[in-house]
């Protein structure tokens, strides 16, 4: 991936927006709308208030409708950069960290994504993420609070934030056991 030019130009600002203290105004996240650009994802967005910067920052949560173990949390600041500043992926493709020797470049999900000062997109796993099993990923709130800790999002009360899985309007999780080919008909 080409380095992100905006972040490369202002790495100090990127680091401040991403890793300095931000306050969220919500105490719980529950999905009630579809992602505007992808109807196969549930979507929630709320503002984050940076403790000293005035840029509008967004906290975005998404969950795949057909697999409740596939979800993302993101911090975005569209007026600074069109890509997510920091992201948690519970599932999906393995990230390639180009700055490492080849044999150590693969970072599987669950992982966090961020940018270094040269604008390179990198992924990392904490010990907690390395040890996560499919079953652990059922606890959306646990990984959400881990995400908040990594990019310093502070909840309004002393109680940890909760994320409610799924959509109260309609649920149609089709994948079983995180298997994208379960229940699929092939013409053989």
């Amino acid at each position, binding site marked *: *991936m*080409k380095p992100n030019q905006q972040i490369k130009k202002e790495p100090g600002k990127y680091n401040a927006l991403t890793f300095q203290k931000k306050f969220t105004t919500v105490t719980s996240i529950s999905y009630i709308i579809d992602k505007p*650009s*992808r109807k*196969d994802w549930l979507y929630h967005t709320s503002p984050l208030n940076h403790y000293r910067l005035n840029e509008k920052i967004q906290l975005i949560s998404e969950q*795949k*409708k*057909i697999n409740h173990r596939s979800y993302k949390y993101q911090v975005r600041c569209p007026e600074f950069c*069109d*890509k997510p500043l920091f992201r948690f992926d519970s599932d*999906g*493709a*393995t*990230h*390639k*960290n*180009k700055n490492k*020797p*080849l*044999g150590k*470049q*693969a970072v*599987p999900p669950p992982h966090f994504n961020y940018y270094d000062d040269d604008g390179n*997109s990198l992924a990392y796993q904490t010990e907690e993420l390395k040890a996560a099993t499919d079953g652990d990923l059922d606890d959306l709130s646990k990984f959400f609070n881990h995400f908040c800790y990594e990019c310093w999002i502070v909840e309004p009360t002393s109680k940890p934030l909760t994320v409610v899985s799924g959509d109260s309007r309609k649920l*149609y999780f*089709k994948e*079983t*056991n*995180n*298997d*994208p*080919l*379960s*229940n*699929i*008909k*092939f*013409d*053989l």
Partner: protein
Amino acid sequence: MNYPKLFSLIKEDFCSLWKYKMRGETIEVITPFSTPSSKFISVFITKRDSHFVITDGGWIEAGEYFDFETIDNDLLKSSLKYFTSLYKTKIATNGQGKIYYLSCDSEKMVSSNVYDISMLISQTINALLLETDTSEEDHRDNEIFRRDVDDYFHSFKKKNLVVQTNKELDGLSGPRFTIIRRSKQVSLVKYITGSTFDYFKKSLNSATIDFQIADKSKYRQVIENKVAIINDQANGYDPEKMAPYIESIEERIEDEVTPWSKRKRLENMF
């Protein structure tokens, strides 16, 4: 230098990238092939009766390899059409999107199908991201140029001229110009740029047509000047290759085009 040893080291590093993850009755094979978006390509294999089914897991259309917000869906469709035909893949659906797959009865053919599905994913994503990246770069360059030229014309307000940028003429929808008004006369200005020759050519042709539309409109009598400013610092600027197109716009505006580096000539015009 012990080259065979070096070869072994390279092979060992490459092979160590092959990984797998069990997902119910399916194995996700994480390959050493990657996309420009820094993702390793995964291929999903399952068995139905005596058949092996080798698939992309629906991940191409699910946007696992790119940021969906920045992708042109028509471009994704056309890339997929080309590469699925090249690799002769079949299509299933998961209710949300398509799953591209190959199947075989023999275990010995699985590797070949894994290779082909990996190439299908890699080449589709490469084509998609290359085009998206070029178009994003073009858009970014255009914006920078547009802002510079807009600022330049806004400085004309000092001469008691009315300047409107990126504006349609009343009752003439479609073409947009920078419009400079002096009493009842108007001058129309188009900005021409492009990060590649093709984008530049498109910008030139589009400007020629916009001037043609204005010429055929009720404004014909009041158009004082038609000005085409070309970005001679753009990556797509190639005066030799684009000479016939420049000639065509010069015929239309009955004047020479104005290279941005020679914009001083405009000061006498207004």
